[in-house]
């Protein structure tokens, strides 16, 4: 790495040094608890769409915790946070364009 990269890497490492170990154990515990809740819900005889909404909601919370704390995104510059996360959400949301077709097949049958 050149001098600039080394300097930036050292600054990032300095940021890491300020975060205590405790928060990582706390996040890990919450992730395990949410997983246990998901498994419990898996055995409830719920309507699939309702169940899917709840499970995806819980998965999004888990994803936010992993990205924010484990992947350190919470502590990055807001520019980095917004550009990466907005582009990801936008691209993934674009794929939803296929779902109306899936509902069409379900309601009308394959034509």
């Amino acid at each position: 790495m050149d001098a600039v990269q080394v300097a930036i890497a050292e600054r990032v490492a300095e940021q890491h040094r300020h975060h205590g170990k405790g928060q990582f154990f706390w996040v890990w515990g919450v992730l395990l608890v949410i997983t246990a809740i998901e498994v419990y819900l898996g055995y409830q005889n719920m309507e699939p769409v309702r169940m899917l909404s709840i499970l995806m909601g819980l998965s999004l919370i888990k994803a936010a915790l992993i990205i924010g704390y484990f992947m350190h995104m919470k502590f990055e510059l807001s520019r980095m946070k917004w550009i990466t996360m907005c582009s990801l959400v936008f691209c993934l949301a674009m794929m939803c364009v296929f779902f109306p077709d899936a509902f069409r097949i379900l309601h009308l049958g394959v034509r």
Partner: protein
Amino acid sequence: MADVAVQQSVAAAYEPSLFGTYSKKIGMWLFLLSDSLTFGALLYAYSYGRISTPNWPTPFHSSSIINATIMTAFLLTSSLTMVLAVRAAVFGNMRAVQGWLFATMACGIGFVVLHGREWSHLIAEGLTLPVFPSVPGAEANKEFVDVSKTVPQFAATFFGLTGMHMLHVTLGVVYLGVVALRKKFIPILLGLWLLAWLATPSYSPFHYGAHVLLLSAIVCSVILWLKPKVYDSSDIEVAGLYWHFVDLVWMFIFPLVYLMSTRIV
């Protein structure tokens, strides 16, 4: 011309990083964004099939759910050990880094072994793909055979999605092994390849899948030969980003593929 030559070693000649971090990390984030679209496409394909098929099977009995829950716990724990490895690296405690990286790799290997065992069990019971050879002497379960025949997209999406994820976990273990041990990891990797190849029967998809380890050993050898270096805290952090991403993807696969297909009796 010599007067205008760029002074590569002068830090002040460059603008500060737009994202406030080093290039390797931005590079890894860009790769992860593109990879998340790969998994996004697979998950959307799975959801499309799920919505458009009224008789979507729910073949996963409690044994499969318990197995997948343990696998999830392995991955979550591996993320914790990985983040502790990064923390040890920024404090310059390289001995602790190695220990945490080994713990992360152990959890990753545990995940792959449990997943492989589950795949083998499902294939033997009849939930299979046409490309998989039949298991000699195995007693097929009528329920699974019916699923494979009536809703073939279930097996296709299940094996496609979980297989892609398993490949990522395997490559993640190799990546961490190289970061932790560098050249010393190559003979271990070759040993793992031989073990996986010889310990799996010839009809198992893992018999051929094991060659991924051989291929990675060749690629890693070339990389380590071309660019030998001591990995520092930034390399550990970048490797950690990849590992957490693999964990993150599983947080969506687990509820979508397993919990939404639980057999409630």
